[in-house]
């Protein structure tokens, strides 16, 4: 906590951003986000949109894994559900983008609840494995329900339409993706100021005690699962508008692991963690490419890039779990605390 911020009301104490400085930084961030598309080139806009989509999905997984303590390896498959729903709606009915995205989230949510049902009987790791099973089953459906999904060839998605403007470039899409992602972030942050969110945390910390306290485990675990899948579905819908092609192979198990890694590296159970993790994990391959490009390895360098990336990816997961289980978010907090307490020294 920042020094010199005396709180005078409970409302103030509970508020998401409680100091002027924070609001100041927030305003700066907002202006940056607004100005970014006008100064960045296509490549950076592309990355920005990708990061925003990944943040949305990682935040969804964070609700489930970070806050409720249930591990899912099916996030990519739920994104696939959202993406296919959006593709089908856009192709067949041409309904507005926002509606399609909501539908994508809704379908993913419904399926998520069904997949989540085993979580009532089994805990923790079993659930992770049942979500692996769900992702394989969903993959089968995507690949073989040819009349609806176009089979292994997949579907092409027309650009999202916003009052007659086709959102067909990264620049235009930015104005859909980033606001949606931001809205989802704000909703997630607020969720944990409500009874539902706090119930999730109670379940994570000790589910039996939570039940004793009068939190119906069944209902809240399923709610968490539903919310997480909804986030994945909407993110998947954005993904569909972004890449404009949806195939069964677009959402491999590796992608689910990617999101889990993002949540771990960023910091489980904090909104900031999901954001930092998604940015970090999306940018690592690009940064590695730059680094390997700088190293005087010649053409040899290119050949080792992909394995090195895979190794770094794994080491990040292992390393953070062993050495910094609270993730990047904790590192960030330490840096911040240093400045807040300056000129005094932070202890511990």
């Amino acid at each position, binding site marked *: 906590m920042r020094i010199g911020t005396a709180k005078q009301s409970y409302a103030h104490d509970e508020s998401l951003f409680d100091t002027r400085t924070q609001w100041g930084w927030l305003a700066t961030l907002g202006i940056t986000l607004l100005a970014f598309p006008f100064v960045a080139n296509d490549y950076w806009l592309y990355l920005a949109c990708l990061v925003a989509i990944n943040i949305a999905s990682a935040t969804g997984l964070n609700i489930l894994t970070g806050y409720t303590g249930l591990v899912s390896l099916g996030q990519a498959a739920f994104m696939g559900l959202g993406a296919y729903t959006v593709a089908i709606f856009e192709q067949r009915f041409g309904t507005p983008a926002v509606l399609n995205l909501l539908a994508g989230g809704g379908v993913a949510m419904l399926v998520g609840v069904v997949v989540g049902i085993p979580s009532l009987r089994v805990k923790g*790791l079993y659930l992770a494995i*049942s979500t692996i*099973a769900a992702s394989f089953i969903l993959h089968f459906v995507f690949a073989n329900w040819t009349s609806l999904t176009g089979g292994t060839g997949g579907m092409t998605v027309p650009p999202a339409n916003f009052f007659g403007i086709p959102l067909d470039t990264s620049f235009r899409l930015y104005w859909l993706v980033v606001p949606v992602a931001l809205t989802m972030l704000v909703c997630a942050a607020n969720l944990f100021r409500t009874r539902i969110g706090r119930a999730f945390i109670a379940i994570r910390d000790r589910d039996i005690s939570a039940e004793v306290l009068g939190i119906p485990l069944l209902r809240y675990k399923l709610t968490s699962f539903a919310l997480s899948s909804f986030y994945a579905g909407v993110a998947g819908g954005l993904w569909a508008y972004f890449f404009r092609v949806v195939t069964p192979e677009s959402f491999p198990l590796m992608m689910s692991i990617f999101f889990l890694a993002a949540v771990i590296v960023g910091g489980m159970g904090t909104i900031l963690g999901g954001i930092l993790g998604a940015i970090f994990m999306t940018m690592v391959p690009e940064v590695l490419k730059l680094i390997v490009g700088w190293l005087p390895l010649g053409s040899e360098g290119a050949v080792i890039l992909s394995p090195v990336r895979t190794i770094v990816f794994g080491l990040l997961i292992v390393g953070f779990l062993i050495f910094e289980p609270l993730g990047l978010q904790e590192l960030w907090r330490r840096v911040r605390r240093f400045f807040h307490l300056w000129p005094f020294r932070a202890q511990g």
Partner: protein
Amino acid sequence: MDWLYLLEISLAGIGSGGLYALTGLSFVMIYKATKVVNLAIGEMLMLGAYLMFGMASNLGWPVWMAIVAAIIGSGLGGAIVERLAIRPMLGESPISVFMVTVGLSSVMIGLVELIWTADQQRLPEFMPSDPVMLGEAFIPPKLFYGFLVAAALILIALAVFRFWRGGVALRATASDQAAAYSVGINVPRVFSLAWIAAAMIAAIAGIVVGSIGGLSSSMGVFGLSVLVVVIVGGLDSVLGALVAGLGIGLLEALAGGYLGGEYKLLATFSTLILVLMVRPYGLFGTHEIERL
């Protein structure tokens, strides 16, 4: 009804089920001793197979020497993994340890691609390749000998569990860690031992699997089916792994034989969901284990 077809398909299924059972054994060994759900099991297989490939094809060693070296090398690898990545996680939540193994699998894939590239490779042929006939029915030779290897190894492992001091220590640790400590069992050493033994078994399974299906950096997918096997069998039950291994092998073969290749994984994972709903602790698993 073509009975011969059914028989051939079933035999092929049981044959590959033997490999599931063997890998399942390796998984259960780690789980029993250290309570780690090891998602990297498929990659441990892969590493063993590639080690053998490296010795036999890159260094030109004779096949038997390459196999022995690969097994020893994998054991060493198991010890290193346990010491560096699993030991520090002692006492952490099982979910964190599980995710460490997810990271490990990525590291292993990267290592293999770094050393041997991501290209597909083939192990030198070392198994007898004359067809094995059971009456009219044809059994794929590699599957047949692979099954024999698996069966022999499983018997040896069971004997070791039963009679060798280390095996007894392992079982003791599995049933009660604190009690094992108090009777003087060096529990950390048992942990190492379990990982070494499991890695060695996985290497053998990997060499058999690799000689059948070739090597690639994505052969770890095999581990996912094994995960299903051990969950269906019960995470901490050796018998469960054996029965479920054969059962899943048979099921996959029948689904593939009568419905088509795309139904194989569907059948496997539908079974998994079904078992999780009806009998979450598996066929032979201990009931308490769901209370993590």
